[in-house]
């Protein structure tokens, strides 16, 4: 592939790969919403009793308020940031551990490979979310759980899939001609990994990262929906927890239900499109129609 031209060639590529383009566009929009959005709100309004309760969206409360008197626009802005941050932490930690284990397992093989492969296989059979429910519900003082703590809890399982995916890629790449060539020319194991394998694996690492962040967001949303985590902070999952708690359905508070749902749906659709786009980038031969 011809490189250079920076931004322009990126735009040109995204035109050929619309899934990646749209996915990144939605993600950038969400990131802007979660960061720049804070300039337009008072971040104290996300806590209970800061505003009148059950307000329908109006000029004063563009997205309404909930039954605890939280301003929903402010809650969604900070909540999106919290939820995406938890996902990022889980994704980055997961990918980091997964890359190291995947390379050790795939490249060097041997007993270590058997052990890692076995552990990964066992953990793939155990539903990760249920494991997280057990761990997260046993954490001391769940009410004070911060973003980092939640991210790290989710990381307990977020390395399993990346390890498996990266191991498989390394295994298939290890026997290829260019690696043989590097071996023959006297490169050491680490040098081959860093100079020959890593650059070729970048698209797969990106796919693994997108998958791990996606899984992290999903797990944290699920845990919070079950009431595990900081009940005071307005993360997206906690917003779902509270709307169930206060029976927003029976009272027809559509704004309280549909707004977080829309944000959450956008997050997942962005990740879906990004992973489809990255897949196309990594395997240009598989033509996808979505």
């Amino acid at each position, binding site marked *: 592939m011809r490189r250079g031209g920076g931004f322009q060639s990126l735009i040109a590529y995204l035109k050929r790969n619309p899934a990646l383009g749209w996915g990144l566009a939605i993600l950038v929009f969400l990131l802007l919403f979660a960061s720049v959005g804070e300039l337009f709100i008072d971040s104290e309004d996300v806590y209970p009793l800061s505003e009148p309760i059950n307000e329908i969206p109006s000029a004063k409360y563009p997205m309404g308020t909930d039954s605890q008197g939280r301003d929903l626009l402010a809650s969604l802005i900070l909540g999106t940031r919290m939820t995406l941050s938890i996902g990022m932490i889980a994704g980055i930690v997961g990918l980091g551990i997964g890359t190291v284990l995947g390379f050790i397992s795939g490249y060097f093989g041997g007993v270590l490979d058997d052990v890692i492969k076995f552990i990964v296989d066992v953990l793939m059979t155990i539903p*990760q979310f249920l494991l997280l429910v057990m761990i997260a519900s046993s954490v001391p003082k769940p009410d004070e759980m911060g973003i980092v703590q939640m991210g790290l809890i989710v990381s307990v399982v977020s390395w399993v899939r990346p390890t498996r995916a990266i191991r498989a890629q390394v295994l298939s790449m290890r026997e290829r001609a260019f690696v043989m060539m590097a071996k023959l020319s006297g490169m050491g194991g680490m040098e081959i990994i860093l100079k020959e394998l890593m650059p070729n694996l970048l698209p797969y690492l990106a796919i693994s990262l997108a998958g791990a962040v996606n899984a992290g967001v999903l797990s944290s949303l699920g845990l919070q929906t079950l009431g595990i985590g900081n009940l005071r902070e307005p993360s997206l999952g906690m917003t779902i927890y509270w709307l169930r708690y206060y029976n927003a359905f029976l009272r027809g508070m559509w704004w309280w239900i549909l707004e977080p749902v829309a944000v959450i749906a956008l997050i997942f659709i962005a990740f879906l499109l990004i992973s489809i786009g990255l897949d196309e980038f990594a395997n240009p031969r598989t033509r996808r129609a979505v």
Partner: protein
Amino acid sequence: MRIPISYALKRLGFLLAVLWTAATINFLIPKLTPRDPVNELVQQKIAQMGLDSSAARDMVESLKEIYGLDDPLWQQYVRYIWNTAQFNLGYSIVNYPKRVNEIIGETIWWTLGFVMTATVLAFVIGTVVGALVGWSESSKYVQWLMPPLAMFSAVPAFILGLVLIYYFAFKIPIFPLRGGFSPTSEVDWSSFEFWLDVAHHAALPAISLLLVTIGQWALSMRAMMTTVEGADYITFAEAKGLKSPRIFFRYALRNTMLPQITALAMRLGFIVSGSTLVENIFNYPGIGRRLGGAILAFDYPVIYGIVLFLVMGIAVATFLVDLLYPLLDPRISYTGG
């Protein structure tokens, strides 16, 4: 066609390893947490009933004796594994004399009912739709099914459930808002009306699970179909002059089904995790809703018991699918498994 013994033994060994790992994690987590459920419970009782502190201390001691918490760790571990092997998951702390087994027995059928129905339907519909979309001779209109199905497949079922409840239980009230049966009706499994009522309540939770999983099956099936279409045996079948539907069902679909069945084993965990959250959103009286309740009450034997039960169930189901696999695909090497 039969299942080779060495392959079966290997899978059985793996199953035992999964069960042992799950049980050990289950044993260790409560030991690692500084939270003390017995104390928390007694504090709660003190607040409720106004016990004095010496009575409270007696209560803590006797409860710890019941749960054997003062024995050395290895004794507790051995006893725990022994009990688990006999499927004795202990007692609920919050509803004390009630056994976790009993709680599972009361709730699991509700979950199995709607989850299995939704999963079977989603597997069949998703596989057929995905195969049709991937098959180049299908009508172009079939292609239009894919984008919406892919979108649904990305969104978690419980989030979709929230939207469905709002539109189809509140706005246009054709389905009930919550629960497994009407509060006015009596539980009577011999009456047809009660079954109808149960189906009516299960419909919306099942649809949210269904819509999300159909897309997942369709996506993987379409990808498989596209690769199979280029295969030599398809070209040969066409050259022989076989009719298109016959090639589709007997040549293409049959071969692409196999990875779908592997995927079924891999996805059981996701499906059960998803249904747990769906049950909580719909207040459906299944095992996932009970787990949600136990989490809020910090009833730890119930949390750990239900999680362990679900993990074991999924491990056993995966084992069974693995055993069936060589029967379906004579090509796979049994010894390599």
